[in-house]
């Protein structure tokens, strides 16, 4: 069938690609745009490894058909750092020891980012809820929760400093 002219913003850059409409957003990111930081773990929205932020909302990119992202803005792990500088969350994941095998890490960081954009000062339970769609088999989540707390504190501090 006819290809779909998909136009979307990915990590701040507008991309236009003709795709089969049955392609998932995950496939477009990985296979067409070579943004392989977004991982596939289950293909059914049960692990969160493919999480990206779509128009400000956290989604599993394996559950989104490419045309559903048309006209929208996608943020992947590759779009988190600015000019090679790691983002506060990325640094916090390193400091807290929240990374082991690393396969869930990109999705986790995006889940945390989506959470902090909505709730800049979450409690532990809120953090756990915010990352509850992202499975991690290595860490037991404790250090991931800690990392999100660390990043939140840093961002709050910066916010405070900027506000004054």
């Amino acid at each position, binding site marked *: *069938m006819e290809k779909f002219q998909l136009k979307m913003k990915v990590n701040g850059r507008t991309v236009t690609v003709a795709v089969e409409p049955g392609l998932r957003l995950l496939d477009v990111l990985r296979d067409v745009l070579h943004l392989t930081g977004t991982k596939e773990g289950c293909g*059914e929205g049960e692990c969160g490894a493919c999480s990206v932020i779509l128009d400000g909302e956290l989604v*599993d990119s394996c559950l989104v058909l490419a045309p*559903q992202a048309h006209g929208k803005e996608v943020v992947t792990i590759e779009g988190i750092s600015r000019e090679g500088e790691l983002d506060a969350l990325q640094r916090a994941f390193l400091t807290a020891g929240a990374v082991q095998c690393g396969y869930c890490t990109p999705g986790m960081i995006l889940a945390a980012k989506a959470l902090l954009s909505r709730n800049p000062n979450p409690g532990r339970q809120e953090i756990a809820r915010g990352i509850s*769609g992202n499975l991690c088999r290595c860490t037991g989540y404790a250090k991931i929760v800690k990392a999100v707390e660390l990043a939140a504190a840093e961002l709050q501090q910066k916010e405070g400093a900027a506000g004054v």
Partner: protein
Amino acid sequence: MLNLSAYHQPKSLPEALALLGSSGRALRPLAGGTDLVPALTKGETEPLGLVDLSRIPELRGISRVDNQIRIGSLSTFGEIENSPLLLAVPLLREAAAAVGSPQIRSQGTIGGNIANASPAADTVTALAALDAVARLESAAGSRSVQVSELLCGVGQTKLLPGEVIKEILFQVPPQGSRSGFVKLGRRKALAIARMNLALVITFEAGRISRARVALGAVGPNPSRRPALELVLLGQEPSRTLIDEFAMAASKEVGQMLGTRPSVSYKREAVKGIARDLLQRLFFGAGQVVG
């Protein structure tokens, strides 16, 4: 990759209805896609054409006029969970919050939850307790059906070919009502309800003057349970009443499940979730013994 025969992204409801109406069943409406996309990927559903409803403004938005609430069918669980307009119906917010994961809640829709007709659909149990009505639209016209009437079996609805759910409507429960939703899952997130329970209780002069009780995942579709409502009606909240309700719920679940293998467990488990919810609605908290 899914092999789709067609993909349409109409910008208005009439456009979508025209597409669907002329296609027989060859085209299928796509809401959030959280159930349909993986089903297609896994080959559980035959390849088909899709009409993506996400760009249709008429299907979105939550509003309140007097005591009536309208929820556009493409409203996501996340929007429902966080809508200040829905503060009056905690059961629906709690049901939406109990769905899957943050990712599913930001993509999945209440209309999709109804049309998918899962026995365990969380928001549908809440909608049953709210006596919610679905407004259906097709090229031929519109009609309104009670949500619980619309569902007729596992994965089965009475939606006609070319018909879509436009919006869900219900009355805010009367003054003095409390409501809540509780879910029994195998884990605390990313879980399908093994059972769910939604309650609306209205108090007048310390007694329960109106009760709505709905149960999910104990039959083909979630439904109101009048026998359990009768247990509460006219009573004062008390621990004894909680016990009576738990026993009645157990009996009800036993009858509903008959000889199914899950009956011996669910008959017992419903007591636990019923207690949790009633204690919360009556007294505001649970208690721990032992």
